[in-house]
C-alpha cells in the first residue's frame, strides 16, 4: 500500500501550518497540514489554495462530507492506510469527487478482499446490497468501473435480490443499472412454451411490473421543478 507520506513528501509540510476544516452537518472542526492536503490532488489543492474565501481565511467548510468518511480519509492521508469499515462506496465517491485515484484503488482492493469471500444470503444482507448499489449508482459517474462490478455482483445474487423489497425501485429508478444487469443475464436456454414460462413468472407478474414502472416515470415527470 502506498503512503502519501512516504512517496510524495519530504516532511516539510509539518512545519508549514495547518488549515481548519469544518466537516459534516455538525461542522466538526479539525485541522490538517495544509501542504499535505494540497498535495493529494489538484482539486484539493484548489480547495486550499485559491483566491476565494478558503484561500483568504484559511478555513474550509465541508458541510456535505460525512464525518466518518473524512476521518477515514485523514487516517489514510497520514498513514497510507485505514481500517476497513464497510465504507467502500463512500470512499469511492469521496475519491471520485476529489480525484484521489490511489485512495480509490485502496478502497477497491479492500472491498474485494473483505467482501468477495463472503456470500450474502440473509434478507438483511440483500437489503444492504440493494442500498449500496443504489448509493453507488447515484453518486458515481457512469464511467466508474465499480458500477459494472456491482451489476455483475447483483446478477450473481439475482435470486436473492429479486425477493428483496426495494430491488424493484432500484431497477426502475436507475436505468443504467438495469442496462448493466441485463447485459449479464443469459436468458432462457430453450424456446419457451406456455407451461415453461410459468416457472419464472406469471404473465400477471410482468404486467404488474410494467404498470408500476410506468406509474413511477409519470410521477417523476410531474414533479415540480
Amino acid at each position, binding site marked *: 500500500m502506498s503512503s502519501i507520506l512516504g512517496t510524495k513528501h519530504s516532511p516539510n509540510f509539518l512545519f508549514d501550518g495547518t488549515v481548519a476544516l469544518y466537516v459534516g452537518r455538525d461542522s466538526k472542526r479539525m485541522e490538517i497540514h495544509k501542504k499535505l492536503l494540497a498535495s493529494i490532488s*489538484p*482539486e484539493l489543492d*484548489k*480547495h486550499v489554495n*485559491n*483566491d*476565494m*474565501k*478558503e*484561500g*483568504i481565511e484559511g478555513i*474550509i*467548510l*465541508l458541510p*456535505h462530507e*460525512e464525518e*466518518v468518511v473524512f476521518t477515514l480519509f485523514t487516517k489514510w492521508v497520514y498513514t497510507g492506510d485505514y*481500517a*476497513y*469499515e*464497510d465504507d467502500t*462506496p*463512500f470512499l469511492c465517491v469521496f475519491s*471520485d*469527487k476529489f*480525484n484521489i485515484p490511489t485512495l480509490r484503488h485502496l478502497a477497491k482492493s479492500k472491498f474485494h478482499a*473483505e*467482501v468477495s469471500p*463472503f456470500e*450474502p444470503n440473509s434478507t*438483511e*444482507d440483500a*437489503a*444492504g*446490497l440493494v*442500498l*449500496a448499489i*443504489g*448509493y453507488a449508482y*447515484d*453518486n*458515481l*459517474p*457512469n*464511467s466508474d468501473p465499480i458500477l459494472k462490478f456491482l451489476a455483475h455482483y447483483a446478477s450473481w445474487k439475482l435470486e436473492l435480490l429479486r425477493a428483496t423489497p426495494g430491488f424493484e425501485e432500484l431497477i426502475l429508478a436507475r436505468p443504467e443499472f438495469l442496462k448493466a444487469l441485463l447485459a449479464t443475464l443469459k436468458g432462457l436456454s430453450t424456446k419457451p412454451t406456455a407451461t415453461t414460462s410459468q416457472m419464472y413468472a406469471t404473465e400477471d407478474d410482468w404486467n404488474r411490473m410494467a404498470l408500476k414502472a410506468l406509474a413511477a416515470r409519470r410521477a417523476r415527470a410531474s414533479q415540480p*421543478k
Partner: protein
Amino acid sequence: MNRSRGKIRPPRRGLATDHVDFDEYWEVLAQSLREIYAKNASHLSFEEVYRNAYKLVLKKHGDRLYGNVKKLVGEHLQTVAVRDVKPLLPSSIVTGDVSFGTATTERRTVGTKFLERLKFVWEDHQLCMGMMKEVLMYMDRVFCADHKIPSIYVACMGLFRDHVLRHPEYNIGTALNSVIMDQIKMERDGDIINRATIRACVYMLEGLYETEEELEDQKVYLTSFEKNFLLASEVFYQKEGEQLLRDCDATTYLRKVDKRLKEEYSRCHDTLSVLTEPKIMEVVDQQLIDANINDVMEMEGSGLQFMLDNDRYEDLKLVYDLISRVDSAKRSLKKKMCARLVTMGKEINRAVSTQQISAVSGADGAGGSSKSSAAVVSEEKVANNITVVAIRWVDEVLALKDKYESIWERSFDKDKGIQAAMTRAFTDFINDFDRSPEFISLFIDENLRKGLKGKTESEVDVVLDKALTLFRYISDKDVFERYYKKHLSRRLLMNRSVSHDAEKQMIGKFKMEVGFAFTGKFEGMFKDMNISEEMTSEFKRLLQESNSNYKKGVELSVQILTSTFWPVGGSGTNDHPCVYPPEIRAIRDSFTKYYLDRHSGRKLDWRPDMGTADIRATFKGKKHELNVTTYGMVILMAFRDLRPEEVLSFEEIQTITSIPEQDLVRNLQALAVAPKTRVLIKKPMSRDVRLTDVFAVNEEFSSKFMRIRIGVVATNRAETEQERRDTDEKTERYRGATIEAALVRIMKQRKLISHTELVNEVLTQMGSRFNPDLTMVKKRIESLMEREYMERAEGERQVYHYIA
C-alpha cells in the same frame, strides 16, 4: 474489524433526498461565475461552487452545465468586444489607409493604446477562465473526458477567438495584425516601439487556435498573422535590397544585411514569436542575399575582387557567412573567387612569359648565327636570367597561395568545398603555363643548392612542403620528373647539394605523394654515388698495392652512373669523342679493366663532358690549383709541352682533342675570355671565341687565390629554347612508349576489349603521371595494329583483339 465482517451495511445517509434541480443549482453557479468576472471572487466559497458543479455533473446535467457556461462566457466576451475594444479601434489602419497622412507618432500612440487594451482584455479573460476552470474541474475531468469534448478552458479560448478577434462587425483581429505590422515597420525604420505590448498580443495569438483540438500548426498566430507579416516583410526587404544596391558599396551592403538579420532574430525573440524566426530569416535571406549577392560581389571597387586583392578578411567572412545562408555549396562565391585567383595566376604566368620573350629577343639582337660562340654564350645568359625569373615565378605563385590560404583560414571557415575549388584554380593556371614543371624543379634546386644554408630543419621542411604543394598541382608529373632528375644529377655530380638529408627528405615527400615508381630513379642515383665512392677508394688501393709502376700525379675519382637512372643521354655509342692525354688514357683504361673484370657484360661509357679535373700549374713562380672541366683539362694539357711563345689555333686544338665544336667554344670561352680565370690568351683579343682565333698560355696570369675554379656552367639553370625543344621531344617519345606499354599490358590481360574501355583504362593508368593526349593514344593503337600486336575483332567495329 470482526464485528463488521461479511456484512454489507446500508449507507448511513438516505438516498432519496438527493434530488438535484438544474436551474436552481445553475443560478447559484452562474452568479458565482459573474462574481469572478466582477473580481468579487474573494467572498465566494470555492468548496460550494465546486460542489454545485460536481452535483450537476453527477446528476447527469454535465451537458447543460457545459453549454450554459459557454453561453455565459460568450455573452460576456461579446460585451467586452463592443464595450471595451471597439472604441479603441484605430480607424486609419483598419481601413488600410496608412498613408492617409497620419503622422507616425500619432499612429504609434493610437496603435499602442489599442494593443494595450487588447492585452488587458486578453489577460483578464485568461485570469477569469483560469478561476472558472478550477471550480469546474469535476466537469472537465468526468464529463468532458467521458464525452471526449474539449475542456471548458479550451472551449472558451475558442470563444475569445470568435467573439473578440473575429467579431463579425468590427475586424478586431485584422486591425491587430495591421497595427503590429505597422509598428514593426516603424521599428525597422528606426523608431522605438513598445515591444512588450506587442509581445503580449502575440502571446494571445499564440495561445489561440483555429480549432479546439489545438493543433500546433493551427495557432491563430500562424494562420492569421504570420503569413501577412511575412508577405509584408518580403515587400519591405525587396525594396530595401534595391535601394541598398543603388546607394551602398559592397561592404556597407553586407554590414546592413548582417544587421538586419540580427534585428529580425532578436525581433522574433523579444517581440514576435520564435516560430517565425526561421521564416523571416528566409525572407531576408531571399530578398537581401540571394537576390542581390551576385551584384554585390560584382561591385566595382568594393566587391569581391577588391576584398580579395586587399585582404579584407572581415568583409570576406561576411560574404562567406551570408552566402552560406542561401547556398551551402557557396557556388557563386567559389566561382567568382576562383575566377579572380586564376586571373591573378595567369597574370604571374604572363609576366614571366614577357620577360622570357624580351630576354630572347635581346639575345637575337646580339646577332650572329646560332652556331657562333656569341650566340651560344648569350643564349646561356638568357637561360640564366630565366632561372631568376623561374624562381620569382615560384615565389609569386607561393605568395598567391599563401594569400588565398590565409583568406581561406580567416574568412572562409576552412571550407572544404572552397579548398577544393582553390586547388582546381591553382591546377588550372599552373598547368596552363608550360614551363611550370621545370620552374618548380628549379625552385627546389635553388633551395637545395644554396638556399637552405643557415636554415633550421623545420624551415627546410616548410620550404620543401611548399614546393610539394605546387608539385601536387602539376598534371605532367613525368615532365617534372625529367627536370628533377636532371637537376638532381647536377647537384650530385658537382657536389653542389647542400645536404643529402634534405635531398632524401624531399624524395621521401615525393614518394609519399606519388609512390615508388616516381622516385625509384632518384634513389638509384644516390645508390650510384655511394657505390662510386667505394669503388674509387678500392681502385686506388689496388693500384697502389699491385702496380709498382704506379705514378703519383694522376688520381682518378669515378662516378659510375647507371644509364637508366641518370639523364645522361644515349648509352653504348660514344657520343662524346675526346682524345685524352696518354697518362689520363692509361688510368682510364686501367679502371675500365678493373670495372669490367668485376662486372662482365656491362658497358662503360666515359663522359668527358661531365667530370672535372684539378690541375697544378705555376704562373710567374706562383703555384695554383686549377679546377676545370674534363674538357678544360684536356685542352690545357695540349699546351703543356709547348714553348712559351708557341700558339695553337682553334682548329689545331680541335684536331688534337677531338672535342665537339660547341663544347670547345664554351670551354675556350672560360679559359681565354672570362676575366679572373684567363689562363690562356687568344688573338685577336675579343669578347667572343671565334673559329679563327689562335691561343697561347697567358704567362702574365696572376690571381690572389691558390685554388681557381674555371667553370663552364656551374649551376642548374633554365633551359634554352633549343634544350626545351629537345626536352619536349623526349617527353613525347617517352609518353608514346609509356602509352604503348600500357596498351600492350592491358590487351594482354583482357584479350578482348572495346575501344572506349581501352582508352579509359589507359587514361586511368597514366593519370598520376601525365594527362595523355587522346590523339596520341589513338595513334599508338594504330601503330600497334600495324605491328600486329592487336587487331580489330571480327564483325565488331569498336572492339580490339590481342594477338599473342
